[in-house]
């Protein structure tokens, strides 16, 4: 005759195994019965979201990761971004050097809302670099909350955060 502890242990393991099996079967059935109709299929999977940092660093000057000799700055000539208002971004690198100019020439900006894993509903206009700065025009943040501006150029990258108030 089995000891009570042993019985409970066996029972627990059986319950866990059953639960896992049921979950797998349910998930497979839901995939089959959902019969998704793909028309323009970009990415059906839920994109990975991020949790907002407890103390969002809103610094407007940061060193470039992967190019520590360069410091990046952002400025908003039309004022800090406000909800649903168009704004522009001036991204600069210092010191003004051949390295900064080369990095700037290939800089790419991506603006996302990390908690929701989506971007803006506009396509900003990137103007030609002037000196050690490049201007992006026509950004628009359509939701309140944490947005991140990621700048990448070959192996270098830097991110800036914007916290858009609800009103």
């Amino acid at each position: 005759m089995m000891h009570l502890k042993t019985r409970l242990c066996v029972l627990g393991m059986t319950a866990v195994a059953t639960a896992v099996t049921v979950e797998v079967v349910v998930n497979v059935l839901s995939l089959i019965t959902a019969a998704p109709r793909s028309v323009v299929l970009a990415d059906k999977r839920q994109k990975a979201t991020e949790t907002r940092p407890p103390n969002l660093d809103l610094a407007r000057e940061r060193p470039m990761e992967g190019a520590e000799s360069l410091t990046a700055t952002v400025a908003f000539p039309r004022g800090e971004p406000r909800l649903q208002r168009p704004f522009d971004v001036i991204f600069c690198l210092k010191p003004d050097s051949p390295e900064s100019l080369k990095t700037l020439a290939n800089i790419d900006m991506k603006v996302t809302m990390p908690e929701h894993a989506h971007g803006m509903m506009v396509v900003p206009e990137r103007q030609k670099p002037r000196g050690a700065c490049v201007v992006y025009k026509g950004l628009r943040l359509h939701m309140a909350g944490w947005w991140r501006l990621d700048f990448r150029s070959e192996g270098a990258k830097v991110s800036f955060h914007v916290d858009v108030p609800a009103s």
Partner: protein
Amino acid sequence: MRKRLLGILLFAAFGVPQSLPTQSFPEDTALDRAQIEFLASALLGAPFSGARKAPEFPSELASETVTAHATAHATDLVAKGQKAFHDRSLSVQNNTSCADCHLARAAFSSPRVVDGRGVPSLYGAGVWRFLNADGSADSLVSQALGPLTHPLEMGVDCNETDTSPEQRGEGVSKNERGQTNLVTDRDRASHGHVAGIQTHCTEFLQAVAAYVNTLTLPPPAPLDVFAQAARRGTLPTLEPVLSHSALRGLKAFTTTAQCARCHFGPYLSNGEFHNVGVPATPEERPEKAAGRAQGLERLAQNPFRCETCEEWKHLPRGRTVAVGAFKTPTLRELSRTPPYMHNGIYQSIEAAVEHYAMAPEAIVGTSEAPRGPRGERLFSTQTQHDIHSFLLTLSSVGGTDRR
């Protein structure tokens, strides 16, 4: 004894339900600052950050220092528009007018679904930067062209055939690049003719747009009474207008359920486009599921669009972010405007709220609807009930409720 103990343990492990319906009312009905701000923004007539910047007519015309003739023209245009809105003789089979789908008793929406699309309420239509669920119109004038010419609606053929504007002696304002300078609805109203469109159609669109633009404010709802009291700080003396369930629902709406991220402002809509994973209906043609992505291409074909507007330069044509995204609908008069979602897939408010509790994956593009941890429900069935109670407070008292 051992068997009894085992039974207790099993019940504790598997027998306790995930959520228990509350039997008590919340003791703390205090609203935090974010909720007070939300209520202030939701008041009818409150300023709205997502509103269009181009001046609307006729109110804009009436408010400026203009000639009496212009003011009279605006007033006359609204009257003509109201008549045209109800006139079935304009349709190809003399059996359809705007009012047949946009029913006044249903907050100017309809229980019908037309070509896979629900009929949106017209309240506040003049404030939006883009209209239609897919954003395929950028003004009231450009929007009305669709129903006027759609074969399942009024079916009017507005295409010009023989005469050219030059032959008729009418001018169309164009810029140096040959683009039509229809920047504002006033521009659209003042033009007697737009290339490719018969004049009588243009006149109809201008008049109807002028009338629809006057449908700004729905009747006040219980939430407005509550919101006013919250703003004035007189809530403690206010007779109860929100049930405790509705109050819990308000709190959930602005916190755990995250509804207020998109549903805020006087029309409880930010007017933006989001993919929230709404399933397709059997009647919905596959290409229509593309939402904003398709809408932008339709807008590009609309002869009344604003080609020279700054916004046009930055629209996400061809971008995946627009795929499957549809415009946030207003929640005003919600109990009178079923079915719900852009394709009318949900017949009840409860079903629509359940959609957000479960947050299914998108059929196209990627859903941005928040999910609970480990893919579980974002909020409980009790919270779902409370949110439903709150949403009912967005409809004015009286009239016909169709929930």
